[in-house]
């Protein structure tokens, strides 16, 4: 399958470098150099993109949801959010988003957590953690390197009584998020296969990854 950068997006990010469609339910990973941009396009709407970052120089430094939320003083990721490492350093910045906000509280689905949330009958359904572990296995990483991730295009409100949960999405076909690498990073993605909650509109679909070099 071949896709080119859509002429319909509202502005160019830079010079085309690479682009690829990640099929429904699949993993994806790529190393980006500082200054490159990544656009993730939610092709069919409300497709959760589970997303982790590791420093390309030292994967022990990796995305930290907690450091990111602490530094910005807010649980929701929006345009302007700086994605920080466990050492507090900027790894990427969300430089644009046509979706109001993204999640970094809800983590990744796993067979194990699915068994708690939906029942033991889901033990053998595909899940994001399995995608992450496969990509990690190709890069000398493993289960110890799993940490809470970002869920682009996923909606997890936190209510005043502390209730939180994955509810109907606020994305739509063609909406996207633009990220700029602030250091050399390994991006690891699971195009979420979850079918038991609304994070993928109960219909996992493809997403488009577009990497560009600085203009």
């Amino acid at each position, binding site marked *: 399958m071949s896709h080119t950068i859509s002429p319909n997006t509202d502005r160019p990010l830079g010079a085309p470098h690479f682009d690829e469609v990640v099929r429904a339910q699949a993993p994806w990973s790529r190393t980006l150099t500082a200054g490159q941009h990544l656009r993730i396009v939610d092709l069919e709407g409300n497709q959760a993109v589970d997303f982790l970052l590791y420093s390309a120089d030292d*994967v*022990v430094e990796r995305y*930290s*949801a*907690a*450091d990111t*939320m*602490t530094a910005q*003083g*807010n*649980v*929701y990721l929006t345009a302007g959010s700086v994605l920080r490492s*466990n*050492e*507090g*350093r900027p790894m990427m910045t969300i430089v644009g988003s046509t979706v109001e*906000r993204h999640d970094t*509280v*809800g*983590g*990744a689905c*796993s*067979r*194990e*957590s699915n*068994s*708690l*949330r939906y*029942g*033991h009958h889901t033990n053998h359904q595909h899940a994001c*953690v399995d995608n992450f572990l496969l990509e990690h296995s190709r890069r000398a990483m*493993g*289960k*110890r*390197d*799993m*940490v*809470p*991730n970002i869920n682009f295009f996923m909606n*997890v409100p*936190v209510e*005043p*009584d*502390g*209730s*939180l*949960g*994955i509810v109907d999405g606020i994305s739509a076909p063609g909406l996207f998020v633009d990220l700029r690498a602030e250091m050399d990073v390994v991006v690891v993605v699971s195009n979420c296969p979850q079918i038991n909650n609304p994070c993928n509109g109960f219909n996992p679909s493809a997403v488009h990854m577009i990497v560009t070099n600085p203009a």
Partner: protein
Amino acid sequence: MSNTATTHAARDHARAQAAQADDRLSRRTPLDAPDVVWSETVEAGNYAIRALPRGTRLELTDVEGDTSVQLLVFNQHQRSERLNIADTVKVQWQAYLGAGQLLLSDMGRVLMSFESDTSAGHDTFNAMSNRAWNDAKYGDGGIHGDTPNARDRFAVALAKAGLGRRDIGPSVNLFKSVFVEPDGSFTWRGDTSPPGGSVVLRADMDVLVALTVTPHVRDPRPDYKVTPVDITARVGQPAPPDDPIRNSTPEALRAFENTEDWYVSRPELTSDVGDPT
């Protein structure tokens, strides 16, 4: 001549120190109280790490009312299994932890549960401090200084159990509460903790717990303010089938079922558990 100029004098000098130490900071596990498996006071800026058998009740007490504890939990026998904050809040549909709730692992099992809680609440969103954070806030974050950061404390604590920096996941932050406003912003509620507040965590698996006592990162005070935490852990029985926490929600019940199933696969770990009468 100084009192440490010879080996014999230096030895006497060294041996005299324990008798002059602060009694509270000298607390240690008594050898004549077999039900107490851990007794320790951890002072500001410091850390502790301990393996606790399944069924142990771990009581953490905020004696002076201003402690702040960052807690990590591992399966003692399979340490790649550890506290997963995201699953803990997502599976329980609740971000504010308290009595009756679980600390879940990434393997869908219960590491520990909150048997009781008289504190003013906890935080599952914010980071532990790291070197950069404490350097910026206090002028120094080194563990060799007066304002050590939690992350480097954990790096050292976990190294002593054969673990490393990659094993430092997000912690649950005990005794300091943070409220999430409807717009997602944080409101600090960490100044409301009563002196003497405590939590009792039941070990629902054989666990390795590591903790640091450092200021919460949202603490608005410019100075490094945190008081010690008193730790007492006692032996106890694992959750019985009619345990109220086990049966409190469908998610909790399945988490306990998964935990019990893991112990079925490891019979050597349960051979001495249970009262035959």
